[in-house]
């Protein structure tokens, strides 16, 4: 078994004191793995992943990154600690050019390293190269996700954390985004993502957790979870595929 990159233990988090949304969730992510967190609507998936990224107040538990305690570190220090987060919406600076979106994320890199790093991103995402001078707000939905992911990868994160990368995308772009994530993992990047679109996420994932009512209730190999009866039960008697069609009863 390869080394653990991200280790989340008994995490409790919520916006208001005394009203936890995440209630003791634990997961581990190993090096070069894609780990998927699934769960019905309102299970606290998004809050869980935002708490890890320092965006939702943590009231209990620990988050270890490469063995280092990063629990409740301020959000702006996360990239320096090695965790790059891609929010679900508004994840690019719309009025800035594609290139400036990449540059503005390079704050922790050495100045002389930046041009080469941007070129590497252009090599990996040729679409962005072609649109480098375009205002990011004018990109298509798929290209926006591409830019958001490139912006996160540019700082060599130890783990790339994504909140529902397929949200709001047309089916064509959904498959494009998941192919992109599978390709990124091949290059050795560790990925943790939360997804509503269970089928597509399990197809590229290595392992998956099912989060229900703010707690991890089930864990398994991604490819096996699809037919796992426990998962179906956790989704209130439905197969997770139905959940992907915009909500579970």
């Amino acid at each position: 078994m390869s080394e653990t990159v991200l280790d989340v233990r008994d995490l409790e988090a919520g916006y208001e004191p005394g009203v936890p949304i995440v209630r003791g969730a634990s997961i581990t992510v190993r090096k070069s793995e894609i780990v998927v967190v699934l769960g019905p609507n309102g299970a606290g998936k998004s809050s869980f992943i935002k708490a890890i990224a320092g965006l939702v107040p943590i009231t209990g538990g620990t988050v270890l990154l490469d063995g280092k305690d990063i629990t409740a570190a301020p959000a702006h220090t996360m990239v320096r600690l090695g965790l790059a987060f891609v929010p679900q919406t508004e994840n690019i600076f719309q009025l800035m050019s594609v290139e400036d979106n990449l540059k503005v994320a390079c704050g922790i890199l050495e100045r002389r390293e930046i041009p080469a790093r941007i070129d590497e991103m252009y090599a990996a995402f040729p679409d962005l190269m072609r649109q480098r001078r375009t205002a990011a707000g004018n990109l298509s939905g798929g290209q926006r996700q591409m830019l958001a992911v490139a912006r996160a990868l540019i700082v060599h994160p130890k783990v790339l954390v994504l909140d529902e990368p397929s949200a709001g995308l047309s089916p064509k772009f959904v498959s494009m985004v998941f192919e992109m994530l599978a390709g990124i993992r091949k290059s050795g990047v560790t990925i943790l993502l939360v997804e509503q679109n269970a089928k597509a996420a399990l197809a590229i994932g290595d392992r998956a957790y099912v989060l229900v009512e703010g707690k991890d209730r089930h864990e398994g190999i991604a490819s096996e979870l699809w037919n796992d009866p426990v998962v179906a039960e956790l989704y209130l008697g439905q197969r997770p595929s139905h959940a992907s069609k915009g909500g579970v009863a």
Partner: protein
Amino acid sequence: MSLQFVIDGLLTGSMIGLGAIGVTLTYSILRFSNFAHGDFMAWGTYATLAVVSAIGATFGKVAPIAPLSFGWPLLVALVVGMAFTALLALLLDRVLFSRLRSQGQAIIVVMASFGASMALRSLLEFTFTSRPTYFSRAIQIAMPVGFGIRITPDQIALLLLTAVLVLGVHLLMTRTQTGRAMQALSQNAALARIVGIDVASVVRVTWIIGGALACVAGVMIGILVQIRPFMGFDMLLPMFAAAILGGIGSIPGAVLGGLIIGLAEAGAVQLIGAEWRAAVSFIILMAVLFVRPIGLFGVRER
């Protein structure tokens, strides 16, 4: 009609524009209208005046740099005054604005800035009295440059200084990591934190730039007109008009807005009479906003 109003308008416009840069940055990055910005101008000017006096008392009378009306003491004092004004802005943010900002109600911060404005102004009146004062009482001879226009060496120097400062700030905003971080924060504060931008340090830079430029604008008024405790407050409405006219958040917009308002005011004085001076800038402001509500250089979100 004489074209002299062009020079007068450009000069007034430069003062308004330099001040409007601070207004537009505060508005777009900290998301509130800082009514104390005019009083930063006045405080910066009095601080500069105090340093000039202190240098005069230490080194005796210093000859002006011909053909200008002022010598090196004013230049040194201006730099000190800019630093002082930047510190004043940082201090006011620390003790007042940042605490209120964290509670998340913009209107409370705006009202607080109104209170701070009155307090700062009263302190100046208390300390220096409301009697106008001057950097120099020497009279400069205006040189004819054709088309019936006359300009003094001081005016040329200050127009050049404005151009250099505006270009510098524009390059800072568009070419440096600090500038990009400021743009990022004004567009999407949550994402700015996620990509690793330290909001507190960007806020500090914003106050430093705004405060330092307010001081320069104030000293320009002091050199070309006079120094009074109300000098900055009287500029407040034209500065806001310029910032809105140019499009909130845009440095070139704020400066262009300032120049338009300065020229319109000067032209109005000549064409319809001095009592219309203040009204004209607002008629232009309303006309532009009617056609283009986001201002000249403003950008529509999404």
